[in-house]
C-alpha cells in the first residue's frame, strides 16, 4: 500500500474518461434532448447524489472557471457544500455563490431565478433521465419510442391525470419537448422552472451518472412543456411574497415556524434573496423584526 493512493488528475477524472465524456457532450449538443449513453464512472460520492453532474462538470471545467453549486436552490445545503468542496480540492477552482459571477453552475432541483447569460453553462444532476420511464420501465422499449417519436402514451398518461384529478397533477420533472423532436426530462426541477429552459442564453447540460446518460439543450432552443389545448401548461404561483426580501413571482420554500400552524415563505434561491436584501429590498418578516429591534433600542 503506498502513499500515492491519493494522487488524482486535475478534476479527478483521467484524461481518457474526460475525452469519452466530452465526445458524448458534443453529440448531446448536436442532438438536442437525446440521451447519449456514456460509460459513467464510479465517483467518490454515491450514485444518486450528483455523480452525473459531477462527471460533466469535471469534464468541462478549467482553471479559469468560476463554479457555483446549488441544491434546492441553495448554496449551503450539505450536498452542494460537499460537491463544491470536492471541486475546490481536485481542481483548485474558484467558487462563488453569486449566480452572475459563475461560469459553470451545477444544480440539483432548481434553475436560478436570475436570467442566465451567454457565457454560462448550467449542469443539471439527473436521477432518472428517461421521461418515459414512469410509463415503461424497459430501456429497450423507451429507446424504440424515442426512435419512432412515439409519444402518444405520454399524452394519454397526462390526460388520464386530468380525468382523475381535474388537472395535470405533475408538479416537478414535468416533461418537455426539445426543438420539436425529443421529449426530455428536465430533471426533478419544479415545473415553475420549465419556462426558464426555453430559449435560454446559456448552454444546459444534463448528467445522469447511475443511468449513464448525458443530454443537452443548446442556447436559443425551443423547450416546450407538454400540454393540451383545453388544459394548457401552467406553473405554480405563490400568493405570498418572500418574507425576507419581498420577492414576488419567485419559487418559495415553506418554512414551518412552530407546532401551531405558523409558517412563512422564503426564496428557494438563496443567492437571489441575499442579493435583493443587499439592494435594500425588505420582506414582511424582516421589516417586522427591524421595527421590533428599533423599539428595543429606544
Amino acid at each position: 500500500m503506498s502513499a500515492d493512493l491519493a494522487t488524482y488528475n486535475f478534476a479527478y477524472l483521467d484524461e481518457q474518461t474526460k475525452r469519452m465524456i466530452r465526445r458524448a457532450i458534443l453529440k448531446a449538443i448536436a442532438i438536442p434532448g437525446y440521451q447519449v449513453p456514456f460509460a459513467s464512472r464510479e465517483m467518490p460520492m454515491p450514485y444518486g447524489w450528483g455523480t452525473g453532474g459531477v462527471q460533466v462538470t469535471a469534464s468541462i471545467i478549467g482553471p479559469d472557471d468560476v463554479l457555483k453549486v446549488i441544491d434546492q436552490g441553495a448554496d449551503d445545503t450539505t450536498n452542494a457544500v460537499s460537491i463544491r468542496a470536492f471541486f475546490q480540492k481536485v481542481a483548485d477552482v474558484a467558487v462563488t455563490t453569486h449566480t452572475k459571477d459563475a461560469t459553470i453552475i451545477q444544480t440539483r432541483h432548481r434553475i436560478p431565478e436570475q436570467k442566465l447569460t451567454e457565457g454560462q453553462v448550467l449542469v443539471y444532476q439527473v436521477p432518472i433521465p428517461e421521461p418515459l420511464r414512469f410509463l415503461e420501465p424497459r430501456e429497450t422499449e423507451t429507446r424504440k419510442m424515442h426512435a419512432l417519436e412515439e409519444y402518444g402514451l405520454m399524452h394519454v398518461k397526462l390526460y388520464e391525470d386530468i380525468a382523475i384529478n381535474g388537472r395535470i397533477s405533475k408538479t416537478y420533472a414535468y416533461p418537455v419537448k426539445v426543438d420539436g423532436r425529443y421529449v426530455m426530462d428536465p430533471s426533478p426541477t419544479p415545473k415553475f422552472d420549465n419556462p426558464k429552459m426555453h430559449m435560454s442564453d446559456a448552454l444546459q447540460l444534463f448528467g445522469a451518472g447511475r443511468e449513464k446518460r448525458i443530454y443537452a439543450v443548446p442556447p436559443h432552443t425551443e423547450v416546450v412543456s407538454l400540454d393540451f389545448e383545453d388544459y394548457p401548461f401552467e406553473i405554480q404561483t405563490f400568493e405570498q411574497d418572500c418574507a425576507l426580501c419581498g420577492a414576488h413571482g419567485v419559487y418559495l420554500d415553506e418554512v414551518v415556524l412552530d407546532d401551531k400552524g405558523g409558517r412563512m415563505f422564503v426564496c428557494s434561491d438563496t443567492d437571489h434573496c441575499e442579493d435583493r436584501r443587499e439592494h435594500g429590498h425588505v420582506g414582511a418578516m424582516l421589516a417586522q423584526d427591524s421595527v421590533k429591534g428599533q423599539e428595543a433600542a429606544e
Partner: protein
Amino acid sequence: MYVAVKGGEAAITNAHRLLADRRRGDRTLPSITIEQVAEQLGLAVDRVMAEASLHDRSLAALAVRQSRGDLIEAIFLLRAYRTTLPRFGSSVPLDTATMQVERRVSATYKDLPGGQLLGPTFDYTHRLLDPSLLADEAVDEPASREAGGEEVMRVSDILAHEGLIEPDGDLPQDHEAGDLTREPMEFPMGRDLRLQALARGDEGFLLALGYSTQRGYGRNHPFVGEIRIGEVEVEMDIPELGFAVSLGRIRVTECQMVNQFKGSSKAPPQFTRGYGLVFGQSERKAMSMSLVDRALRAEELGEDITAPAQDEEFVISHSDNVQATGFVEHLKLPHYVDFQAELAMVRRMRADIEAARNGETEMKDAAE
C-alpha cells in the same frame, strides 16, 4: 427572527470527526490493523474485492476498516479507487483447469479423478458459538497432504468428453471481451458482459434470485457439476515479447452448474451450463451467479421468459449494489423544493373539492 440554516460546511466537518471517533471506538483497546483484517476477516475482504472488481487484499482490508465493517460501503470505496487506475491491457483468460485446488466438490459424481476435497469450509461445522475463540486459544496447524501440484480435471470436461454437455460457447476468434466499466451498457447484452455484471453483482441480490429459480420462478434443474476454489496464474500477453508473462497468482472460486438438458431435431439432448467465477473464496456467490447466468440464457436456449431471474434488463439493471445503495439512500437528500410543489398541488386539489362541495350545499339550500 428566522435565520436560514447555514454552516453546512461546519456540520459536515463535525460529522466526519464524529465518524472517525466512532470508527476508532474505545481508545483503551488496540486499534485493528489492516493485516489483521486481511488475515482474520478474509472472507469479508474477498467479498469486497469481488464486488469492487479489484483484486488487492490490502486495499480491500483498508476499505473494510475504513467503512467500519459496512461491506457495501467498502465495495464502494474500492470501486471509486479502481476507476482512477490506468488500464494497461487485459490478461489472458484464466485457466481454471490448472488451478491449485484447495477445495473441490462435485454433486454429480461420487468419485472422480482428483477426488473430492473439502478444503476450508463451514460445511458440516455445527453452528454453535465457540467460546474458545474468546480465549484466543492456540490453533492447530492444518493437516496437509503430500504436495502433489497435479492438475485436477474439470467435471464439465468429463461430460464434454461424451458430448453430454453443450460446448463452452463459441465466441468468434477475434471476439474481444467487452468491459462494462468502460462502455455504456446496452440491452440485450452478450454473455461476456452479463457475466461481468454478475461477477460484481450484489451477493444478496443474486442469492435471492438464484433461490427464486429453485422455487419455481424460472426453474432450470441445476446440479453442482463442480465447485473449485484455489489459486490460478494471471498472465498477460506482452506484444513486444511475443509471449505471456505471469503477473502473479490469485485465489478464485469457480462454480459450474450442470442444468436441464435440451434437445432438438438437429442436436441430441445435452445438458446445459450455468457459470460462476468470483475473486477469493465465495461459494455462495459463485453458485448464485451460475444459477442466474443459466436463468438469463433462457432466450438463447429458446425457453419462455416468465420469471424475474430470466429477465436480463431487470436483473442486470438492479444487481449493482453501489448503484442501488446510492439511489435508495439519495432519498434522504433534501427534496423540499419538489415536496413544496406537491404540497401546493394537494392543497389546491383539496380546495377544489371543498369548493365543489360548498357549491352543492348552496344549491341544495337554495332549492329547499
